[in-house]
């Protein structure tokens, strides 16, 4: 079941929001406004949006150090997200979590886990809670291909599979884990093939094709809601920039490789699809303008927001 044209325009809007938001954060980072490192998502937008578009508002998401996009795709306020990244009192986590932990339970983004792979068992637990509470929610858990080599991946997916929990495990394979390429971290070609080690389906999709991602996610959601357990979806994609905003990203990647992937821009590509389906240039241009405006507004909000006061230091520990 493909999304409607309206839904597709919404997806386009989300992808663009992510792109512009990350560009703006990169800018703030270089101006020294971001207290932590910022791991940008540019180039991978089709994954977050494809998956989250297949989710309901009351479904859950668990994300990672590279998690701004999943927040945006899930409908979290860009204002409060930007404020969080800047460590402001108006941030999603009052500025205590920052870029790597920015999340909004009210919007279903349970947490961003900056320790690689740790969200995989936690997502199983969210699935367990869904199952025991008897709702028909699902949870999508995002992680990189690098995370697929840590024990949490193995233990967590095995547990979710065994207990047939309603989890989508979404591996964002951007070919690198910091400086280490996939082929220097495992002999396996497709991370999705590891699904067989847990007796669950594994699917490889073009992670730069938002409709392909959407369709894979939609099927996995159907299975999960139907009590048939988790799916491992591997989205082949690429991060255009460095590992984080301060990393040029060329010390360990050939320039040509980066260039080749930039050619495959998921946003441009989807834009062409929309035009071919009859959406007009004008419609898209107005979306684009609205997005720019919304991102500018978010950054202004974040920049103008106050830092938390000292009384916040000792709050929220217990």
């Amino acid at each position, binding site marked *: 079941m493909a999304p409607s044209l309206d839904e597709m325009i919404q997806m386009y809007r989300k992808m663009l929001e992510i792109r512009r938001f990350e560009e703006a954060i990169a800018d703030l980072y270089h101006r020294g406004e971001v207290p932590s490192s910022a791991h940008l998502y540019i180039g991978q937008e089709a994954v977050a949006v494809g998956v989250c578009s297949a989710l309901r508002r009351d479904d*859950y998401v*668990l994300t990672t150090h590279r998690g701004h996009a999943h927040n945006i795709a899930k409908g979290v306020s860009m204002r409060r997200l930007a404020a969080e990244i800047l460590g402001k009192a108006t*941030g*999603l*986590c*009052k*500025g*205590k*979590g920052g870029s790597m*932990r920015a*999340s*909004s*339970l*009210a919007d279903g983004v*349970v*947490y961003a*886990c900056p*320790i690689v792979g*740790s969200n*995989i*068992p*936690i*997502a*199983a*637990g*969210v*699935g*367990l*809670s*869904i*199952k*025991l*509470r008897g709702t028909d929610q699902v949870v999508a858990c995002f992680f990189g291909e690098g995370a697929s080599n840590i*024990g*949490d991946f193995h*233990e*967590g997916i*095995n*547990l979710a599979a*065994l*207990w047939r929990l309603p989890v989508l495990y979404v591996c964002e394979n951007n070919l690198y884990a910091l400086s280490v390429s996939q082929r220097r971290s495992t002999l396996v070609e497709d991370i999705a093939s590891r699904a067989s080690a847990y007796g669950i389906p594994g699917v490889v999709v073009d992670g730069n094709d938002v409709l392909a991602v959407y369709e894979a996610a939609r099927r996995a959601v159907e299975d999960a809601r139907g009590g048939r357990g988790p799916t491992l979806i591997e989205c082949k994609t690429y991060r255009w920039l460095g590992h984080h905003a301060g990393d040029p990203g060329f010390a360990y990647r050939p320039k040509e490789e980066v260039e080749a992937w930039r050619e495959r821009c998921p946003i441009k590509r989807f834009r062409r699809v929309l035009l071919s389906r009859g959406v007009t240039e004008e419609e898209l241009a107005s979306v684009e303008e609205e997005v720019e405006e919304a991102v500018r507004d978010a950054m202004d909000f974040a920049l103008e927001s106050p830092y938390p006061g000292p009384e916040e230091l000792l*709050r*929220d*520990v*217990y």
Partner: protein
Amino acid sequence: MSMVEALREALAEEMRRDSSVIVMGEDVGVLGGIYRVTQGLLEEFGPERVRDTPISEEAFMGAAIGAAVTGLRPVVEIMYADFLANCMNQIVNFAAKMRYCSGGQLRVPVVVRTMVGHGRGHGGDHSQVPMTWFMNIPGLRLVAPSTPYDAKGLLKTAIRDDSPVLFFEPHLLYRVRGPVPEEEYTIPFGRADIKRRGEDVTIVAVSAMVPRAVEAHERLREEGITAEVIDPRTLNPLDIETIVESVKRTNRLITVEYSPKTGGVGAEIAALVVERAFDYLDAPIIRVAAPDVPVPVSPPLGRMTVPTVEEIVEAVEALL
């Protein structure tokens, strides 16, 4: 009843009271736990709420956390406290920090029950009393009961608490019996129990060392020495007020634990007492503890790693 039975009662009562309480861990279901703490729970509450897990400590700890932040109250069993090292990441980097780092959005009501200090020859990696691995981690609660009564009351409090709790059960006391009332009760965190009153020295003993300190009290009384024996019961929060108040009267302090001495619980208690009751101290603080070695299997060596009543008595005599 024994501590094992008291713990079992606490679990069963809380599971009856609140359907969001679930139990998970290795061999907790069909077998009822290797120490039988969870025996009968599978039969009463069924396999959805009483879950045998694969050997995947990091995963089921993480799963407990994920379940906790979305509405359940999981009680996890880690078979030996040594295996906390296998899920240290989930405990320290997630359970302890998610509430703070989410700006208060998340609560992590997980209880981690675990067996400490086997006390028989199970060897170095199956005998630790690793409370101090976690004393430097804000966000956790640390509970160390020494009687069936305390075990039951504290476990019920732990399950109802919205913070993650590490609940250390001493193998040496699992089968020791003690009174437990019929009526429902809970014991608040952060309230030490003064086991014996005394005027000459304060002994703060932890976990399985409490009955030994009490026995030391009895022996010392025969010599005309009265030792005040305090069981803090929870190490976080720590009822330092009760300890300080006691030291202000006795002017002497001994701590007793069965972890290696260096970096042990006694260090923190000693440091706090020096901070708050320095002018009242008439003598150095003695820390009775295990020697700084892994626990060996061989019985004569292994025994040397668990402080005895004699060692406590001698420490008191050395102070006076």
